[in-house]
């Protein structure tokens, strides 16, 4: 095994071009487990810790450009207003020790269907900035996941940053597990309301071979909200609408039975999470949300 230690992004791309089999390592929270357990013996490890720019983020007009190695702890602490869904999801990642090391770039690189960041990224809307010595491209998050632990990266490409749409409305994230910490999702659900475009987006984790959106559920809910004039009136969403949204969300799943849960349970849990996150986000949109503490105090 060789340990490659590029000092800059350009050096990292050159190293990856020269050694396409090199495994990038940043937080190490996935890669080191595989090495410790002898599940993987890469020929080259490509350490990205010295590439300082990967730990930086920038808040722009419409998007947040989040460096691939920004640890979850910093997302929780600094980007809660701009990326509420991702901040909530980050808070559910493992433990403080893991959140201090792991970042969204690693989640995307591993592309596990159980990765906690994925539902939040799918719901918010995002593009992954990947680069190689050949150039840079932006992959829409909807096209990024191509199979179980597979993504759209070419062998010589590295993930540099994720461009995530800043929240224009309430976002929520919900995750089912056996504990509040140190848990791989049995399944997870992200929901973002986009009042600016009068759309809603979703993301489902651990309930299909890849993280997926529940597009039919999104379209149904957006149409129901539009037709009923709910965006203007801010009225409560009728239970029948919430129920159908939840059922359509479960319909988008293609889960398996495994050690963490059965397919049947996962479908049911997605139904419950979809209904709950809709309730939470809609309450917040109406100004009664649990995330708008100021309102609660004034009310």
């Amino acid at each position, binding site marked *: *095994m060789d340990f490659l230690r590029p000092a800059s992004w350009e050096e990292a791309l050159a190293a990856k071009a020269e050694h396409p089999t090199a495994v990038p390592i940043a937080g190490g929270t996935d890669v*080191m487990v595989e090495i410790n357990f002898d599940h993987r013996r890469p020929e080259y490890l490509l*350490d990205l810790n010295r590439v300082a720019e990967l730990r930086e983020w920038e808040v722009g007009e419409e998007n947040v450009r989040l460096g691939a190695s920004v640890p979850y702890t910093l997302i929780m602490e600094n980007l809660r207003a701009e990326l509420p869904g991702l901040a909530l999801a980050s808070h559910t990642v493992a433990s403080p020790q*893991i959140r201090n090391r792991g970042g969204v770039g690693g989640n995307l690189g591993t592309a596990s269907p159980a990765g906690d960041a994925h539902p939040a990224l799918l719901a918010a809307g995002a593009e992954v900035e990947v680069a190689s010595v050949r150039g840079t491209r932006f992959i829409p998050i909807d096209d990024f996941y191509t199979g179980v632990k597979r993504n759209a990266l070419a062998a010589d490409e590295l993930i540099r940053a994720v461009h995530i749409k800043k929240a224009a409305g309430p976002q929520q994230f919900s995750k089912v597990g056996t504990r509040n910490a*140190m848990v791989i999702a049995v399944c997870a659900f992200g929901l973002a309301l986009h009042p600016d475009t009068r759309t809603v987006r979703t993301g489902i984790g651990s309930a299909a071979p890849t993280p997926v959106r529940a597009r039919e559920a999104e379209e149904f809910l957006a149409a129901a909200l539009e037709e009923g004039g709910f965006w203007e009136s801010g009225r409560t969403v009728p239970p029948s609408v919430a129920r159908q949204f939840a059922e359509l969300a479960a319909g988008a799943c293609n889960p398996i039975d495994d050690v963490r849960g059965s397919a049947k349970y996962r479908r049911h849990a997605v139904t419950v999470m979809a209904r709950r996150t809709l309730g939470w986000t809609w309450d917040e949109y109406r100004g009664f949300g649990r995330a708008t503490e100021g309102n609660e105090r004034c009310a």
Partner: protein
Amino acid sequence: MRVNFTVNGRPHEADDVWEGESLLYVLRERLGLPGSKNACEQGECGSCTVRLDGVPVCSCLVAAGQVEGREVVTVEGLADYAKQRAESGGCASGACGNGGTSVGDAQRWQAEPAGTDSQTGEQGELAPIQQAFIDAGAVQCGFCTPGLLVAADELLERNAEPTDADIREALSGNLCRCTGYEKILDAVRLAAARGEAATAGQGA
């Protein structure tokens, strides 16, 4: 490969390090610092928790090559670390509530000269959190204790008056199979209370 880094304020050089080796293995097997415990090797249990440039991490998930030129504090150096922090920050508990140790502070930190040695952790004086663990009976088999001490010490450094929820969150990455955690929570509360009392005593 050779790795140069600082452990408990003292520069170290580890030779013949395998490229896939973890920081934990280097600490235990090459530097003779077995305080950080090797249990799950997958970041689940927190027994190997150390500070890397001031930040608590699982040393089993840090590749040895990634620590080149960086600062590590292990449980062996905890008493020294807490003492220096107290002396520089003027808060006896080490609980300064200033949002943690900056990389700059971590790098300026120096070990005591040999004698009161942070290499073995066997010098007489304990960190306040260590004393609190003893006094509260928070140690049973002791295997999880080093990781819990490092994590709890870091909590009190950035949050001098943690709520129970803060303590549970900060220690949620450290598993203990003996105590049921109650005595561990007691120990952290005790260390926090002693820290406050000491601060009040200074008229701060």
